């Protein structure tokens, strides 16, 4: 049992470890082989993307900027001010005030501190009305951090400005299987999700 390795031990272990042959041909071949690989790379196309002239392609599920959306059929704000997103947010960046009304509730004030947001998509997942979604873009460079404190108007504006990502609250919850299927293994595929997001077949 060696508590500390003295220098003598290090030297002994050093000598016992493997050594490769020091033949000149091996060395020369290895050096030339390494240089050949870097030389080959000289002629490969560079992987640089000339951002921002060329836009970056975002995948469907990209977790970008957050936005509030309007309902598609009525054109009203989808957010009902239920504050579920505020409670689930791990860094607590969302603040909502509810405004009660006869038919449905609204959000009187909705602030989201984007500079502290983790982009974890939990708020999107819990939203019962699919009101808060993420966009397929993160382009919001600014010189002043206060511009990243988004209020309701800015959130709605972002929602109109960029393409939306795939995820909404209902889609994410449906993907995790209806509650009836819980605790049974090898169950049939869940019926609810939309066709393009059906679970992958085994043979691909």
């Amino acid at each position, binding site marked *: 049992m060696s508590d*500390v390795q003295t220098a003598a031990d*290090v*030297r002994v*272990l050093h000598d016992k*470890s*493997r050594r490769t042959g020091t033949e000149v041909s091996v060395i020369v071949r290895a050096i030339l082989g390494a240089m050949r690989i870097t030389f080959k790379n000289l002629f490969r196309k560079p992987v640089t993307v000339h951002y921002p002239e060329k836009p970056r392609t975002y995948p469907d599920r990209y977790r970008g900027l957050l936005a509030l959306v309007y309902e598609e059929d009525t054109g009203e704000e989808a957010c009902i001010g239920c504050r579920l997103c505020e409670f689930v947010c791990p860094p607590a960046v969302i603040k909502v005030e509810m405004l009660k009304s006869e038919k449905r509730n609204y959000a009187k004030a909705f602030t989201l501190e984007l500079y502290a947001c983790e982009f974890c998509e939990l708020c999107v997942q819990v939203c019962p009305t699919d009101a808060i979604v993420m966009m397929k873009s993160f382009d919001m460079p600014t010189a002043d951090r206060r511009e990243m404190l988004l209020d309701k108007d800015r959130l709605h504006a972002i929602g109109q400005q960029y393409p939306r990502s795939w*995820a909404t609250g209902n889609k994410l919850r449906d993907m995790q299987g209806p509650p009836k299927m819980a605790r049974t293994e*090898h169950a049939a595929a869940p019926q609810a999700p939309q066709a393009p997001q059906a679970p992958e077949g085994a043979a*691909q």
Partner: protein
Amino acid sequence: MTTVSTTRQELDYAGSERLTMNMGPQHPSAHGVFRAILQLEGETVVGVDAVIGYLHRCHEKLAETLTYAQYPSIASKTDYVAAMTSEFAYVMAAETIGKIEVPRRAQYLRVITSELQRVASHLLWLGTWCLDMGGALGGGATIFLYTIRERETILDLFESLVGARLLYGFYQVGGVRYDIPDGWAATCRDTMAVIDQRIGEYERMLEENPFFLVRTQGVGVISRDLAEDVGISGPLLRGSGVAFDLRRAAPYSSYEDFEFNVPVETAGDCFARYRVRMVEFRESLRIVRQALDKLPEGPISSRPGLKSVAQTRIPKGETYARVEGARGEVGCYLVADGSAKPYRMKWRGASYSNLAVLPHVIPGHKVADVVAIMGSVDPVFGEVDR
């Protein structure tokens, strides 16, 4: 500043002039924020004092204030290079206490993403290690850029699966949050084929290279006794001749369904650890291919989708869940008290225990070897300081 402990006076150097040099927390090859106070005699290191804690962010306290639904996203930030590993340990601990079954499809998805994370993490390790040894302007940077180029393709895979590149929130108690989209399996196979071929290129660039060999063979030898005493894990342990891999010793999440080899080398030097990780690349790709072939149908979570923050309650109990991460054993000791938040959570960071071997191994080597050894230990300071 603390002084060098007395055990190091046994070193047989008639020290005439000792120089205390600080490899400070801001250093191009400190792998994060790590402070090593080196005592030098000429070029030889005779003492090492390691100072950590520059990245402490109170994870364990945070876990007491966040619920089981919220914390997995934060858990990514401990080992941010292989983020899924930390989430896995936490979620597994909660599931063990609550006796929650995880559907088979979710288990296979967890295996796929864990192994892809291992590949991505090892790519970053190889790049930064060669960067440390070769310099930011030099051959090391070339290999760094090659491995980062490959790692980007894996991160693109994760982006199309989860939406995020580095810090996911992929796991949740009971399963996973996202299912694989159409065409992902095919892209995954193509990516893995490219990576397989490129890893061959890196091996050819490095393995017979006399410069590389002379830097890594015989350097930083961890004897088998020392390895077992100090409590290191992962590729460090397997590079010193101890055949211990949690995926074999205590299989979790249906790892027993897959065929793979666990590489073990006996030399214990940096080159042995390098060989272990290079073989682990190929084995991880093998596991992912098997998992994609045998991926069963079914739900991806045994708990319903998240509807409210306190949805998941874990009954009273405590357990220690361990996962074979890219760096070693990542463990989570969880004490649950029946509510939606844990009572206490403790992380066992793999890198934290691995760093303990440094004061035993570094004395006797030259300054240039310090970076080679630290690179082969592969610490990530999010895990060390939490």
